[in-house]
């Protein structure tokens, strides 16, 4: 059933005659069910013309421009804007342009003066197919998708002009038109194209999908349409660092909400001019939202930093824990890049033993995202086979939210370490045994000199819960420590120029140094342990 009613007739006629396409006419007549929009364009145009012609007899024909009659009518009708070509007659009937149907036939073969072709050519199967070919060629694995369509900002100006025109026309019939009484271009475009995309690609459209296809339209011919707004609302168009142009869609919308109707009408034609060409497509791009992989790693090397160690643009060591793990993930997930995070970190010369340290990796723009647990297990094996400097366990796909658990434990939990300590004075077993009896020793640590350049200077109280000594020889012993997270172990041993007090040197009254340090456990329960 044709969706327009007698009530819409004047508006439809007016819009059609000024070069607006049938679907935009539906939008401005508030047609809010999908089916009519989906009809083939030619059919719509014919139906619309038929609709407007059937009751033409009821309408009074009038020569629009520039007969004296019009001027007379305008003089009679108080408060009617002189800019308009059309006016209302006394019986509540609307005059139309003579030969309006012919004129509109011609104009509607042309580009719509409101949507600039968006609801014309760009709703055609041909265009949808073109986009879908790009999507399929992009090589992404996806089970649903979200479409993101970006229209040129000046389209909002035309939309506003058309809205004012329709509002005025309806005013003549004592009808009102609110901002939300029309259907947004974006909505109509969705109603028409979503089913077509879905059918063509064989997957549903889902607003929550991580796979996004974005189509960006531009219309070079009318770029300057929105420039006049800047003079009127300069504060809406403040330049920002990463914007190419101040005329963003948001800025234009903001200015349009502010601008007075009269001011707008003075600066921009209502109805808008008919453009020569339809929009151009400047971008069809696919992107997949990040996915996250977590696990635990062991580090068995004292020459391996956790993250690339770069000073003055030069690499100090040619590998890192994050690279040894992430390189494999990047390949398998076919991702563009990664972000590595972990529950704390160890120094380059510190090993991480025991169950390892929890980590998570964000894979940015992955082309492949579906893996069975078997495949993940194989991936873990591949990582472990590739290097003897690190090993990974409990590798699994996780959600973005779950990564919070990893950071929660960072500050609260205890950590256990093993340190190899040298003393300048010769020692015997009895000289170190007293350390075993010390429980919950409070120490005050000034920010270590080695990190002072990038952290605030502060004195932090930390607790050494317990220590256990293992005598090695006259100048060496091994110390196992259980400490509060955030304790600087190296500084507790050598004292950091007396800046950590007490320290092993002061407790033993020797000069002590730390030769080796291992993290024995990081007591964080996340990610969940997996069976082998």
């Amino acid at each position: 059933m044709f969706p327009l009613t007698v009530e819409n007739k004047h508006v439809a006629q007016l819009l059609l005659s000024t070069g607006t396409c049938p679907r935009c006419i539906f939008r401005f007549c508030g047609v809010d069910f999908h089916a009519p929009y989906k009809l083939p364009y030619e059919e719509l145009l014919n139906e619309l013309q038929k609709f407007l012609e059937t009751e033409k007899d009821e309408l009074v024909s009038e020569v629009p421009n520039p007969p004296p009659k019009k001027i007379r009518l305008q003089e009679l009708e108080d408060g009617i804007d002189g800019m308009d070509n059309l006016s209302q007659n006394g019986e509540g009937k609307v005059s139309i342009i003579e030969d309006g149907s012919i004129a509109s036939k011609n104009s509607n073969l042309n580009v719509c003066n409101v949507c600039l072709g968006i609801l014309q050519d760009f709703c055609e199967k041909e265009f949808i197919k073109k986009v879908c070919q790009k999507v399929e060629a992009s090589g992404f694995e996806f089970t649903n998708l979200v479409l993101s369509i970006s229209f040129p900002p000046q389209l909002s100006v035309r939309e506003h002009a058309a809205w004012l025109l329709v509002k005025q026309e309806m005013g003549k019939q004592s009808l009102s038109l609110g901002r939300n009484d029309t259907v947004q271009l974006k909505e109509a475009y969705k109603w028409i194209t979503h089913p077509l995309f879905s059918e063509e690609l064989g997957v549903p459209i889902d607003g929550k999908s991580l796979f996004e296809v974005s189509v960006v339209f531009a219309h070079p011919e009318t770029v300057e349409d929105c420039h006049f707004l800047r003079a009127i609302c300069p504060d809406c168009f403040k330049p920002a660092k990463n914007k190419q142009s101040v005329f963003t869609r948001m800025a234009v919308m903001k200015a349009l909400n502010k601008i007075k109707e009269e001011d707008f009408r003075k600066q921009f034609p209502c109805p808008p001019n008919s453009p020569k060409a339809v929009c151009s497509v400047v971008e069809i791009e696919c992107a997949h939202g990040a996915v996250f992989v977590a696990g635990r790693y062991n580090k068995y090397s004292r020459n391996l930093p956790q993250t690339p160690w770069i000073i003055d643009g030069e690499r100090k060591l040619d590998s890192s824990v994050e690279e040894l793990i992430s390189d494999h993930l990047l390949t398998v997930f076919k991702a563009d890049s990664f972000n590595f995070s972990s529950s704390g970190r160890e120094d380059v010369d510190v090993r991480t033993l025991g169950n390892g340290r929890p980590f998570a990796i964000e894979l940015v723009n992955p082309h492949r995202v579906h893996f069975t647990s078997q495949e993940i297990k194989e991936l873990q094996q591949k990582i472990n086979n590739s290097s003897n400097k690190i090993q990974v366990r409990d590798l699994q796909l996780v959600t973005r939210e779950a990564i919070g658990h990893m950071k929660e434990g960072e500050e609260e939990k205890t950590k256990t370490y093993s340190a190899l300590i040298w003393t300048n004075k010769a020692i015997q077993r009895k000289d170190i045994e007293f350390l075993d009896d010390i429980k919950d020793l409070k120490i005050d640590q000034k920010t270590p000199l080695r990190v002072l350049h990038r952290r605030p200077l502060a004195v932090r109280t930390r607790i050494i819960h317990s220590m256990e000594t293992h005598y090695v020889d006259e100048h060496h012993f091994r110390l196992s420590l259980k400490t509060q997270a955030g304790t600087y172990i190296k500084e507790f041993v050598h004292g950091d120029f007396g800046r950590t007090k007490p320290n092993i040197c002061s407790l033993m009254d020797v000069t002590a140094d730390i030769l080796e340090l291992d993290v024995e456990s990081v007591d964080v329960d996340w990610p969940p342990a997996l069976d082998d």
Partner: protein
Amino acid sequence: MANEPETPVAASAAEPAVPSLVDRYFTRWYKADVKGKPCEEHCILQHSNRICVITLAGSHPVLQSGKAIKSISYQISTNCSGLQNKVSGKFKWGAQILTELAPLCKIYCSDGEEYTISSCVRGQLMEVNENILHKPSILQEKPSTEGYIAVVLPKFEESKSITEGLLTQKQYEEVMVKCINATTATS
């Protein structure tokens, strides 16, 4: 899983199997003839992260045998004391700004001699060493670790240039040899 072989621990060595803490992380720079006073050498330990620890060089008169320190004072003028230095936050707001000639502290010896210790490097004063106020002997016992004078953070962009006017370890040793020769020659 194959672990990397562990570094074998040198058996019962009085010296550690690795260089000392200072040698591992710091570069030693020397300033001879501070303000034209011979032999009052300072040693600046610069960490690889650009932090500078100001210490006395081994040749400084205060460290010579027989010297006793009466007191140390960070009050270098009526209005300026290193003890009042306050730094806050990652960017160390509020730190005293030091030029290379800025005095840090005065050391008064029991023989009546008085020595002024200078910053030698431009930068922000992070902290002075309060421990040596309470126990001046630390300064003589461990001049290059616990007996440090102050910690200075140079500007990032000046982290290389601030040491340009200073002597390297090798140059310092050469100066010392000449100094000793000169002293021997004149005496």
